[in-house]
C-alpha cells in the first residue's frame, strides 16, 4: 500500500469514528414514512380492475331477466349451440391434455438443439390474433396436403373438417392446447426429476416411471391445464368463425350464438347466452379451486 493510500484509509476511519458520535446527524433517530399511501395505491389499482369485472357481470345480469333467459333457453338453436359447445370443449380438452402432457414433459425434461426455437413456436397460437389462426387454418386446408388430409378424413369418418364440427374442434384445439402446454411444462418443471430417477433405479422403465410417478405428481397441473383448455375453448370465436363458419344448427357454438343474436338485433338473447357462458366459466373455476386446494397430498 502506498503512503497516500494509507493516509486516505486513516481519514476514512476517522470519519467513521466521528459518525458514531451522538452529536452526528447520522445518529439521529430514523423515521419511516407512513405506509398509508402505499396501501391506498395498491387498493386503487387493484380495485379499479376488480370493479370493472364485477360491474360487467352485474350489468349483464341487470340487462336480462328470467323470462328472457327461459325464452332463450327454449330456442332450439341456442340449445344446439350449448350442446355443441359442451361437446366440442370437452373433446378439445381431452385432446389438449394428451398433447400438452407429452409436449410439456419433453420441454421440461429434455435438452436438445433447437429447444428455444420450438419454445417460441409453441407460443405462436398464444400471441397470434385469433382471426389469423382461423385464416391460417383455412389456408392450410385449402393447400394440397390439407385437401388430401381432409379427403382422407372424410373417407375415414364421413365428416368434413372445414365448415363442419371437426373444424370447430380443431380451431378450439389450436388455441386451447397452447395454454395447456404452458401449464403442463410449468407443472413438470416444478416436479423434481429426481423422483423419476429413483423410480428408474427401483426397476422402472422410462414409461413406467412417467405413468407411476411423474403423472400422479402432476395431477394438479393436469386439472389446471384441463380447466384452462376448457375455458379457452368455450370462449373461442374468431378461429371458429373463419375456419368452421357460423351456420345455425351446424357449427354454432355459444360465442357464435352471441354474435348471431347481436347481428339480428336480439341483444337480450345475446346477453342471456353471455350470462350462461359466465356461469359456466364460474362453475368451472369454483370446481377447480375446490379440487385444486383439497389437500390430497396428505
Amino acid at each position, binding site marked *: 500500500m502506498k503512503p497516500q493510500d494509507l493516509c486516505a484509509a486513516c481519514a476514512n476511519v476517522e470519519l467513521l469514528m466521528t459518525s458514531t458520535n451522538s452529536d452526528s446527524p447520522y445518529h439521529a433517530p430514523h423515521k419511516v414514512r407512513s405506509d398509508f399511501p402505499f396501501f391506498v395505491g395498491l387498493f386503487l389499482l387493484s380495485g379499479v380492475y376488480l370493479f370493472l369485472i364485477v360491474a360487467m357481470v352485474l350489468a349483464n345480469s341487470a340487462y336480462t331477466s328470467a323470462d328472457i333467459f327461459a325464452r332463450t333457453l327454449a330456442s332450439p338453436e341456442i340449445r344446439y349451440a350449448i350442446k355443441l359447445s359442451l361437446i366440442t370443449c370437452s373433446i378439445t380438452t381431452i385432446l389438449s391434455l394428451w398433447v400438452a402432457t407429452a409436449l410439456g414433459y419433453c420441454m421440461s425434461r429434455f435438452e436438445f438443439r433447437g429447444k428455444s426455437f420450438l419454445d417460441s413456436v409453441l407460443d405462436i397460437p398464444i400471441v397470434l390474433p385469433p382471426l389469423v389462426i382461423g385464416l391460417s387454418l383455412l389456408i392450410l386446408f385449402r393447400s394440397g396436403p390439407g385437401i388430401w388430409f381432409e379427403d382422407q378424413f372424410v373417407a375415414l369418418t364421413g365428416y368434413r373438417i372445414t365448415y363442419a364440427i371437426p373444424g370447430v374442434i380443431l380451431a378450439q384445439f389450436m388455441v386451447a392446447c397452447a395454454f395447456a402446454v404452458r401449464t403442463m411444462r410449468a407443472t413438470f418443471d416444478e416436479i423434481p426429476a429426481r*423422483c423419476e*430417477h429413483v*423410480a428408474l433405479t*427401483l*426397476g422402472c422403465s422410462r414409461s413406467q416411471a412417467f405413468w407411476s410417478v411423474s403423472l*400422479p405428481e402432476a395431477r394438479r397441473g393436469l386439472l389446471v391445464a384441463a380447466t384452462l383448455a376448457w375455458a379457452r375453448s368455450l370462449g373461442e370465436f374468431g378461429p371458429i368463425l373463419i375456419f368452421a363458419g357460423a351456420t345455425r344448427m351446424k357449427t354454432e357454438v355459444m360465442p357464435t350464438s352471441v354474435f348471431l343474436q347481436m347481428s339480428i338485433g336480439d341483444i337480450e338473447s345475446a346477453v342471456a347466452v353471455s350470462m350462461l357462458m359466465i356461469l359456466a366459466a364460474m362453475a368451472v373455476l369454483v370446481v377447480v379451486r375446490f379440487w385444486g386446494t383439497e389437500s390430497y397430498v396428505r
Partner: protein
Amino acid sequence: MIALHDVSVQAGTFRLDHISLTIPTGEYGILMGKTGCGKTTLLEAICGLKRVVAGRIILGDHDVTRLKPAERGIGFVPQDKALFSTMTVYEHLAFALRIRNWDEKALDTRVCELAELLDIRAILPRRPYGLSGGESQRVALGRALSAHPHVLCLDEPLSALDEHTRQEICELLATIRAQLGVTVLHITHDPHEAMRLAQHIFRLEGGILNPTSLDPGAPQLHSSCGNRIQ
C-alpha cells in the same frame, strides 16, 4: 462389490476422468469431498443416471456400464430423498416389488419385514407430507432396500437431521450393512460420519479420487454419530 475401472463421467460441461475405486462385497465405503467436486455425479453414474463415457463399472460380478438403472440391482437414496408425494409409506416400500410383479402376499410379507427393520410400522398408511426428517430417511431407505439390491448408494443421508436422529440413522445404516450384507457407497462431508461407519474412505479432490485409510492412531474425534462401529 462396487468397482470402478478408469471411469470417465460427463454431466453437461462437468467431467470426471480416470476414476477408479473398489469396495469389496458387503463392506461400507464412504466418498468424501468438497461441494461441487463431483461426488453426486459419480454416485449417479454408478446408478446409471449419468453418462459414462469411458471405463467400466462392476457391481457384484457384472459389468453394468451399459445397463439401464433398472437392471443394475441397486438401491439409491438421493440427498433430498425424493419421496413420492402421492404414495403412502406402504406403497413406497411396495413400489419396486409391484414393478417386479410380486404377488400380493409375498409383497406384504416383505413390506412388513422392512417396516420392522426400519421401525416404521406405525407410519405405513401415511403419505410423506408431515413425516419427520428421520422418518422420511427411513422410508427412503426402505424403498431402496425393498427389492434386495446388492448395492446401496446413499447421497448424504444424514444431512439436515438433528443430532439424535443422526445417531439413530447411523446405527440403522450399520445394522443394514451387517444384517443384509449389502455393499454401501455413502457420500458425506462429515469426517465423523466417515469415522463411524466406513471401512473404506475415498476423497474426491480436483477430479482425482484418492483412497484415504482410516487412521487408528488418530485421536478419537467427538463424533456426531457416536463411537465407531466395528
